[in-house]
């Protein structure tokens, strides 16, 4: 007989997007008018903290609220969504969704597999089969396809074992699928949340968050990607030149944007990070840029991940600024420098 999983109030607090948690929230019958009550003020301040933690990228251990009433903690989740829906900044929503979903992943990694399966099955309604071998989990393929975080490499369906409608996955992959679900759940909830009136207490919170966000938004707009390595040491001169032009908000030609974006994607930057690079462009259009960068990353269209131009082509496009000795490709320059400086050829920067 299968041991039953006990889904506690703490679990609902950790996984507020599950059916059990949402049901619990509904039963609490808490309305936005209640935010004016003392208990509501606690909910509101926790909701604000949740968003601020995300903006400030607080380490999860530090962000974890201590000694709180779990029901109040649970209520802070929908409340933060209402605040974000009112602030209505797509970028902030994504910052929050990514932070919260990474927190979910963190929690899940500490759980035993049975609990994770329970969450997927009973909390999200996914069709999961569990067995006892290494690839001991199987998920009905359409859930896999819907929440697949990437379409490349080991995530690609064709590189999985698919049988009788079920994809074999590891525990870790199931955690990633749930993380992706929670991220999209939050984004969708923020886009759809509507309130009929705006009580005073809530509008003060919205203002506070907006102010805080406005002061740090710029930081998100400049590439944070160079935090751990000194770009001047590891990027080839052509890429540094392009980066400088972009930062000054100068319009660079299409070929330059292509070279920069493909370079960054190839050294392991995420699509979001690369999009952020281009925010300072005078003609920046997030949707268009996203489409193009995803295309270059091989997530769209032909599914070919593009590489940067080789030096010969950089030269003929007028993008080369210095003749680097023995270098035939900008990426070769990068890997050589990284290799020398950090000892390994393909360090994840």
């Amino acid at each position, binding site marked *: 007989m299968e041991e039953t999983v006990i889904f506690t109030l703490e679990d609902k607090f950790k996984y507020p997007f599950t059916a059990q948690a949402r049901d619990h929230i509904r039963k609490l019958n808490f309305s936005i008018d209640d935010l004016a009550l003392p208990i509501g003020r606690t909910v509101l301040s926790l909701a604000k903290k949740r968003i601020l933690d995300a903006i400030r990228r607080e380490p999860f251990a530090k962000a974890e609220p201590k000694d709180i009433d779990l029901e109040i903690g649970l209520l802070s989740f929908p409340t933060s969504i209402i605040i974000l829906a009112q602030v209505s900044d797509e970028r902030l929503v994504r910052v929050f969704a990514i932070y919260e979903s990474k927190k979910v992943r963190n929690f899940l990694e500490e759980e035993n597999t049975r609990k994770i399966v329970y969450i997927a099955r009973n909390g999200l309604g996914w069709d999961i089969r569990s067995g006892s071998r290494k*690839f001991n989990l199987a998920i*009905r*393929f*359409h859930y896999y*396809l*819907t929440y*697949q975080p990437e*379409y490349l*490499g*080991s995530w*690609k*369906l*064709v*590189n*999985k*074992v*698919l*049988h*009788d*409608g*079920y994809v*074999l996955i590891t525990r870790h992959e199931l955690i990633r699928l749930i993380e992706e679900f929670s991220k999209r759940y939050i984004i969708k909830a923020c886009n759809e949340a509507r309130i009929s009136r705006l009580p005073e207490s809530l509008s003060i919170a919205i203002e506070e968050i907006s102010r805080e966000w406005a002061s740090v938004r710029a930081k998100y707009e400049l590439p944070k990607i160079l935090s751990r390595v000194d770009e001047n040491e590891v990027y080839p001169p052509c890429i540094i030149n392009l980066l400088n032009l972009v930062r000054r908000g100068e319009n660079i030609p299409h070929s330059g944007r292509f070279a920069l974006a493909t370079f960054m994607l190839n050294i392991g930057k995420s699509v979001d990070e690369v999009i952020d690079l281009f925010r300072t462009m005078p003609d920046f259009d997030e949707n268009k840029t996203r489409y193009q960068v995803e295309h270059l990353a091989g997530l769209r269209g032909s*599914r070919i991940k593009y590489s940067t131009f080789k030096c010969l082509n950089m030269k003929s496009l007028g993008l080369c600024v210095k003749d680097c000795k023995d270098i035939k490709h900008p990426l070769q320059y990068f890997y050589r420098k990284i290799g020398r400086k950090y000892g390994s050829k393909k360090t994840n920067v």
Partner: protein
Amino acid sequence: MDPKKLMFNCFKRYYRKNPDIVVPNNIKQREFGFILFINDEMIRHTAFPSREELVKYLKEKVPRHAYYSTAYYVDPSAPDMASKGWLGADLVFDIDVDHIPTDCKADHDFYLCQDCGGISISGEQCSVCGSSRIKKVTWVCERCLDVAREHALRLIDILISDFGFSSNEIEIVFSGHRGYHIHVQNKDILELGQDGRREILDYVRGEGIDFRFLPGFNIPRKGSKSISASIDSRGWPGRIMRSLYNIILNLNENNFHEILSREIERDDLEYILENRSFFLEELENPDKGYVNLLKLRRKTLLALLESAVDFSKVIVDEKVTIDTKRLIRLPGSLHGKTGMAVRKILFSDLENKSPVDYAIVFAENEYFKIKAKFFPRHILDFKIEDKKGNGYIVVPKYIAIYLIGNASEIVEAIEVI
């Protein structure tokens, strides 16, 4: 006799005789599209409340081509895609022999010059006037249809054993021309977007298989290789091993270029041929380990495995599967290029019959004398011979209709005999 008028009259008689039109499920939620004989414009955004209304329309309008949407809409007749209210779409695969290389193409395909009307065999430029405005005219013969059938069977195997669809969720339709449309109707895939559909598409065509990631294979650049996949494994790993078995079983000195899609070294080929029985035995009994297989150099082993993928992948037209708002041919309607019927068929028909057996409509014992500039040598099950060498041939009605429908430009005169 006016060839196009002849064709129109044949189509008209067909539709008036209450043909077996198979309507899609939820007909009210489907968009229909038609091309008539008068021009090449597609009449879109049409909807029908019932089969009767649709059949009435076909009888009245006598379309050259008839289509319906693989998608379901709230309001399928809304004039633009945005206001139709997309509800979901069937999963559809188009197997078209045009996308699959076959050597019979040389027997029937040619190029027609848009400027002088000259015929060329190669596709660079017109061999008569040198113009580069040339159009490829393709035909199908039974060999082509057999290849398409082979791919349809492979696809259905993957849909059932890997994706777990049941046979009654899979509808098989002969397209009326060069292949088959395989429709899957299942609630789980209904709302799947383009990305998910592309993953399914790539799965059936083995696109992106990477032995660094595929479970059951460990073939590193350095260090020892190991394979735990076997002919009994599930999904692609098992399919690859079974193909590998077939490749090694059938390989010989003369056919290795055809059987292996990747090159291997001469001495490796000889080694495999000399030790064929050992290779087969270890593939049949993997418990004892793949001693011979793993002895091969990495490059050779990968070439064999990649050939095995090519041996079992399905070649399908990608647009049809990915597009969730696609129009597809209506079963029971006629294909305006061939005059053959688009036919919904049973799995046993796919296995045992050729479209020549069930899709030819104009099978009457009626013959036509046709004068033409050029003839394909072999179309469907019919060998065309200009016996007297004067540009005249005598063909049965279904071949005459096919010649007119597919390339009326080459037909100079036609009369009943």
